[in-house]
């Protein structure tokens, strides 16, 4: 997917002025946030926090042993009859998928939701090779109809109102006019069903890979993932290499916190394990199952101080909780992963210079860490990314000069006190609109007023008066 993250500020501006988007994002994030709170703490605060701690420890343990777990997962998947392919980058992963399609003479492809395939631009690659690709997750189906990209990692169409979805279905899919969401969903289901039956190849993502059993774990609510992975002759799963966990028990814990954090459910409607292709005597299932393990920059993160970012289980809770995401929606972030976790992984996966505004797209309020089911310290990483951006010369010339001048003044109490006095004496002349890059402040707030006398002056006057008393 093309990376437009460097345009965050103008794209955020567009989003702020889009009334429909504001309505949809405001409603969607608030609903997601509230449902998450209710589900996570249904059995009390202590229980919810204990689940978070367990999940955090499981993910960190898995990352500590990642190379070994990946080898174990590969061996056990192969023993289950799953063919495992490795991909250094998105291009190689897409090439694997195309080769598989050719090998099995597949023409028609159905997909269930996968953010990793957004990373690799898979749909485009398959369509360029002449294959028919259909997204079957309802949200992704609407994204595909509208020729958009997902704006949220769990709810791809969080930015759309019911009315705009209705209009799109009428225009692009020839839905008979209706305002009823259930009727719309039924229409989509009836449109998709024959395509499942006719498809040669199903492509899914993967929420987890369980190393000890060689299983691919999927969660979904619509049942489409189950159809994608069982009806077509061939099933291909795209999975990031960080998604491996050690044991079924670890998976059992994670599969409790993931839906609670993502959609406010104790469990998703379908909780689904793929353990290989159809066995002799089985009634259904694909003849061939492939898992493509994608690196695409993850190894570099693994070997850096940002390894913690790989603990993410893609629940979207940090998006819903983030006041910046709540204001802008996801498209402003410019790449696959929006919100706080996107502000961390986009620069790490695509290059700091290609996402310079994102680490700054945060007030560091800490809500992302508070709601994260695996307790990723996103604010810490945003601060460190800012440090790295400045060190690499991406801090912005004006700010660099300003910070140096400020530090020169503030490292000396004499200059600092003097600066305060100068500011105080000029306070009557403070303009209504501040100059240069500071005018962003006065667009929304009054210019702060310096006091006639600073605290240090008042303190010294008080002390002087005290000392004069007998």
């Amino acid at each position, binding site marked *: 997917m093309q990376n437009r993250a460097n345009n965050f500020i103008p794209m*955020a*501006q567009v989003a*702020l002025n889009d009334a429909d988007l504001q309505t949809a994002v405001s409603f969607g994030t608030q609903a997601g946030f509230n449902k998450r709170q209710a589900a996570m703490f249904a059995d009390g605060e202590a229980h919810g926090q204990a689940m978070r701690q367990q999940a955090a420890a499981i993910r960190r343990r898995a990352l500590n042993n990642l190379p070994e777990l990946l080898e174990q997962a590969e061996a056990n998947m192969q023993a289950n009859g799953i063919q495992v392919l490795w991909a250094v980058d998105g291009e190689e992963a897409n090439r694997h998928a195309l080769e598989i399609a050719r090998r099995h003479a597949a023409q028609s492809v159905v997909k269930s939701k996968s953010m990793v395939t957004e990373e690799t631009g898979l749909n485009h690659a398959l369509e360029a090779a002449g294959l028919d690709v259909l997204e079957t997750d309802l949200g992704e189906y609407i994204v595909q109809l509208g020729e958009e990209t997902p704006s949220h990692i769990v709810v791809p169409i969080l930015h759309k109102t019911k009315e705009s979805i209705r209009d799109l279905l009428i225009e692009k899919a020839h839905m008979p006019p209706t305002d009823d969401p259930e009727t719309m969903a039924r229409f989509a289901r009836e449109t998709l069903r024959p395509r499942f039956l006719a498809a040669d190849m199903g492509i899914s993502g993967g929420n987890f890979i369980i190393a000890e059993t060689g299983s691919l774990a999927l969660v979904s609510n619509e049942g489409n993932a189950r159809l994608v992975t069982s009806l077509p002759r061939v099933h291909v799963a795209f999975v990031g290499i960080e998604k491996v966990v050690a044991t079924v028990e670890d998976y059992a814990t994670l599969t409790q916190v993931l839906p609670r954090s993502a959609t406010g459910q104790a469990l998703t409607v379908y909780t689904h394990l793929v353990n290989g292709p159809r066995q002799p005597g089985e009634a259904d299932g694909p003849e061939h199952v492939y898992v493509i393990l994608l690196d695409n920059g993850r190894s570099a993160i693994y070997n850096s101080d940002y390894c913690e970012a790989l603990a993410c289980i893609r629940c979207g809770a940090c998006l819903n909780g983030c006041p910046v995401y709540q204001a802008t929606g996801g498209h402003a972030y410019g790449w696959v992963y929006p919100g706080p976790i996107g502000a961390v992984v986009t620069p790490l996966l695509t290059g700091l210079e290609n996402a310079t505004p994102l680490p*700054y797209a945060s007030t*560091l309020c*800490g809500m992302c860490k508070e709601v994260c089911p695996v307790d990723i310290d996103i604010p810490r990483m945003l601060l460190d990314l800012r440090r790295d951006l400045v060190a690499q010369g991406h801090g912005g010339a004006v700010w660099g000069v300003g910070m140096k001048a400020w530090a020169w003044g503030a490292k000396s109490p004499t200059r600092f006190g003097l600066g305060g006095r100068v500011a105080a004496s000029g306070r009557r002349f403070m303009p209504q609109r501040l100059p240069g890059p500071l005018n962003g402040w006065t667009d*929304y707030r009054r210019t*702060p*007023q310096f006091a006639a006398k600073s605290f240090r002056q008042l303190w*010294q006057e008080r002390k002087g008066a005290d000392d004069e008393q007998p």
Partner: protein
Amino acid sequence: MVERPSPRGKRVSLFVTCMVDMLYPDTGLSVVDVLTHLGVEVDFPLGQTCCGQPAFNAGYWPEARQVAIQFLKAFKEAEVIVAPSGSCAAMVRHEFPRLFADDPAWRGEAERVAAITWEFSEFIVEGLGVTDLHGRLPTPHTFAFHDSCHGLRLLGLKEAGRILVGNLQNATLVDWADSENCCGFGGLFSVKMADVSGAMLGKKLDRIAQSEVDAILTGDVSCLTHMNGGLEKQGQAARVRHIADVLAEGVRHAEPGQ
């Protein structure tokens, strides 16, 4: 979590913070008056300037270090440091050890001040164990709290300010659904991403407008400057106040002998 040494019976070195020093000196005096009322000896090291957070949060660590070193020098003799800001206290407690992690000359001192620094309301309630200042406001007031993000999520500050204000005579606390929502300040963010910050501020101001309280209380003058600046820009009364100013008002009007 490292066990923090008890601050009881020790002299307090006030870290007034750069914003209070230059913009809100009366709030600094409020802090001094409340602490003095409690019998605490207060000292103001004149070498202090700023904790360095503006540069640190912007990614300018070498510049932040220069300013933070001045902090370490100024508070060299301090036994207990109290700041009327959750954000600046969090900078010293959480980030100083990180900022000087690779600097053997200053690392020890950075860790020392991190362990003895307190936010103002936290110091009184958790440090001194005082929950009632026996203060009285001259007229009845209703208050809601804005929990400043850094205090709330980095220091776990929530109850201390409410307990102290709630125990003032004539003060009524109102639960406010918007207490924990960020006001959109974020330091450099408010200028660098002014429109997003402005949109966040707009939501906050809408909720302030809907709240039927006399004042919104906060422990950080940065959030206060942001919210009051927004209210004044809209032509509304600046009704966000620092906790210390309300507590000092209560203490100054306390019945003699209490």
